[in-house]
Structure formats: C-alpha cells, structure tokens
C-alpha cells in the first residue's frame, strides 16, 4: 500500500511535469485522442450494438428495442432509457451490485447528449398513442476501464444507435402484431462528447486512467451536428477558471467534429 502511494506520487509529478511542457507520458499531444477502434453490430441478438476501444478503455453498448407504455406527459413519444454498468471485470475498483454514483453519472451524461440533441426521433416511435410505444434501451457495458469512460460510452452509444433496427408491425384490435422485416431506428442527430482534464493548469483531452488520478477536475462538452453544445458536465473535486471553461469548450468543439466523422462515416 505504502509503496503504491509513493509510486503514484512520483508518477503524478512525472505526468504533471510533462504536461506542463506540453507533453504526455504516453507520447500524445495535449489535444490528441488515443487510438479509436469501433466495431459495429457484433451482438446479433441485440437490435443494435457497437464496441469502442479508446486506447485500452473498452466499452460495449447494446441497444434493445421493446414495446411498453409511454410517459403519461408524452403519450405520443417513444421512450429512451440509458443504463450503464461498470462491470467488475473492467477494473479492480468496480464492484458488483446496484449502480453507484459514478455509473449513474455516466449513464445520465450519455443520456443527456442523446436526448438534448434530439438524436432519436422519439415522435416516430409511437405505436398506439398513450398506450404502446417503442422503448429504446441503451445499455452501456464497460469492459476495461483505462480512463475517459464518458467519451468512449457516448461514441459507442451513438454507433450502436446508428445500426439499430426496429421490427415492422401492424396494429390489429389494439394488439401489436409483428410483421417480417426491419427498418432503421430514426436517428436525426449525432451527439459527440469530448472530455478534457485540468492538470497543473493545463487542459488535456481524453485523459487516461493515470491522468484521471492526477487531474484536478474534468469537463465534458457534448455537441450536436450543428456544433451547438447539447450537454455539459464538470466532474472531480477541483475547479476551472472561467477562461479555462471557454477554452475547453473551443477545443472540445473542434475535436467533436473530428470524432463525429469516425463514428458516423465509420
């Protein structure tokens, strides 16, 4: 225990000193992402799926489509529900059990980006108004945690939604009958999240786990395809100056456009 704390202090100093000089321990530039790999449709049993590797961080997202009741205040809209599991095989820190605050925050930030950008045309997912609508379950499954779960999860969620199919149906006497064939889920916008960490006064994008342990705080901006901000989340027990916030927003906007190409155009 003592040793590991000591090592971590040395490493912490090393990471911070490098960043002060515009460099990173893994050789990246300050605004450079780790290598991104996207695999689509690998869970055939799910209506949509994608696996994103961000360096050694691996996130699998599966989308299931069900039928259920709409919210009473939105009788003509489908329902989107985003859930995340920090599966204990992904990190020695993760534990089995009901989702903790970190997992809930992750799911809610991914949800916010999709919802606020109106990415899914929920109004096209109504089957019988007030009674039956499609429910889109987006399940974020973290398989290996090496930092920046938000960006990897948001990318994987978008990639999975983009290959999600919903079954054809007809309504007969108030019952939903499934018909052969599928059509794609109506995805209208492509929200992308970009996270920056503040370390020793500098901003770096896509922090890996060691940087997350060193950082003062992180901030995530999600952008829609028009370059409008559609979600923000500051995390961590430090702070940003107002000027850092605005600088982070500008960097994030640029990176979001780059990442969107990767995810959407594949």
């Amino acid at each position: 225990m003592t040793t590991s704390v000591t090592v971590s202090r040395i490493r912490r100093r090393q990471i911070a000193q490098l960043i002060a000089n515009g460099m990173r321990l893994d050789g990246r530039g300050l605004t450079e992402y780790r290598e991104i790999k996207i695999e689509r449709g690998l869970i055939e049993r799910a209506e949509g799926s994608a696996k994103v590797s961000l360096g050694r961080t691996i996130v699998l997202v599966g989308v299931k489509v069900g039928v259920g009741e709409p919210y009473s205040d939105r009788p003509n809209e489908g329902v989107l529900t985003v859930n995340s599991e920090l599966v204990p095989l992904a990190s020695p820190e993760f534990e089995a059990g009901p989702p903790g605050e970190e997992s809930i925050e992750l799911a809610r930030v991914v949800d916010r980006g999709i919802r606020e950008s109106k990415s899914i045309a929920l109004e096209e997912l109504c089957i019988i108004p007030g009674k039956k609508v499609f429910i889109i379950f987006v399940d974020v499954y973290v398989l290996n945690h090496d930092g920046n779960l938000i960006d990897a999860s948001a990318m994987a969620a978008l990639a999975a939604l983009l290959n999600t199919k919903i079954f054809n149906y007809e309504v007969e006497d108030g019952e939903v009958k499934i018909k052969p064939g599928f059509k794609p889920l109506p995805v209208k916008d492509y929200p992308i999240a970009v996270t920056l960490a503040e370390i020793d006064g500098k901003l770096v994008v896509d922090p890996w786990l060691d940087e997350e342990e060193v950082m003062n705080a992180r901030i995530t901006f999600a952008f829609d395809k028009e370059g409008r901000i559609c979600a923000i989340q500051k995390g961590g027990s430090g702070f940003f100056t107002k000027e850092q916030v605005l600088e982070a927003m500008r960097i994030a906007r640029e990176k979001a456009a780059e990442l969107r190409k990767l995810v959407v155009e594949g």
Partner: protein
Amino acid sequence: MTQRVYEKLIDEEGKRVDGREWNELRPIKIEVGVLNNADGSAYIEQGKNKILAAVYGPREAHPRHLTLPDRALLRCRYHMAPFSVEERKSPAPSRREIELSKVIREALEPAIFLEHYPRTAIDLFIEILQADGGTRCAGITVASLALADAGIPMRDLVVACAAGKVGDRIVLDLNDVEDKEGEADVPIAFMPNLNAVTLLQMDGTLTPEEFEQAVNLAIEGCRQIYKMQKDALKARYLAIKKEVEEQ
C-alpha cells in the same frame, strides 16, 4: 396536475412569466443557524424554492476503512421531500438525486480545507422542502453557509446560480416553468475570490456564443448572491455575539 401552460415565456415588453427582467434574480431570503442539533445549518428561499442544509462533522465515520488518511471525507446527500414537487416523489433516492449529490459534493470540495481533518467525515445534508427550478444551485449556496456555520475552514464561499435560454433570450436564474419549457439551462457554482467554476452542467442546446453569454450572466448572478451570503453570515455572527454578551 394544476400547472398552468404559458403561451409565451417572454412577453412583448421583455418581461418573464413572473414579471422579472432578463437579468433579474428571484427574491432570495437566507438565514444561517436554523437547526439546533446540526453543527451548522442554513435555510434559503429563492423564488418558491425552500431548502434546508445541515452539516455534521468533522466526526468519526463508520466503517472506518472508508475514511482517508490525509483528509476528511466529504459526504453529501441532496434529497427532495416527497411533498416538494407537483407529483409526490418516492422517498427512495432517484438517479437524479444521486447524480446531483455527486456534483454538489464536487462543487463544494474545492472550497474546504479537508486536509485539516484527516480520518474524519463531514456530512452535508441538503433537503429540498419545496422545489421551483434551480434547486441544485440554491442548494449549493445554502450548503456552503451551513459549512461556514459549522466552523469548517474554507478558501471561499461557494455560490451558485443558473443562466439559460428562454424564449430566445439568455436570462438569469430560471424558475420551474422556464427550466421545463425553456431551451437551455446552465447551472454554475463559483468561488468569486478564486475565479473558480466548481460546478458546470447544461441541459438543452446553445451555440458557443450563447453559452459564453450564459456563463457571464450566471457568474454575475453568483456575485449578487455572494453578497447576500456574506450578509446572512454577518447577521448570524451578530446574533451569536449578542447571545453571548447577554449571558
């Protein structure tokens, strides 16, 4: 169930649904030291928000292995009373409450000298007795006073306020209707003396320019509330002084 529907969130004269100007805060009432058992406490009304905060600690924490060798553990619970909202809320913590508890804790942590109290816990409880939009911000504002009332040393008071976009205008301190019907909401927590943004979130959509305006406006709101925080602390100090002198 009984909620009015507003046709326009900003009227022809530029007034908001509750008659405010675009850059006007709701009426705010703050009181420090309102509960007897807690080590520190405070109460705020901001519009129809009614929020209590209380602090216990630094104190022993169980189980012991959760405490930290080099600083105090700050624990925070943001909780809504079942009767605080239009439709009765189940008392079990919702996912929203769990997320807000986390971001509020992270908004206050940068202010506290946690390293002064290793191996202890500081427990912060925020109870939303009535909710009217902007509860997380008002909750942070009042919580930071409860911490001060408990005598916990802080770098600065944390103060919070939202700005947002409503009926195409960037406005300050959204109320419940504006929050639900408006285009965007940007809550910010701030330490004025340190130019430190300690909480920042956003719902809705904004262009970068609108966002910058909203940030500036929210921080302006924070500075106004900050003065009220200081006044409330001073009032509490004078009350205690009087009490002591009378003994």
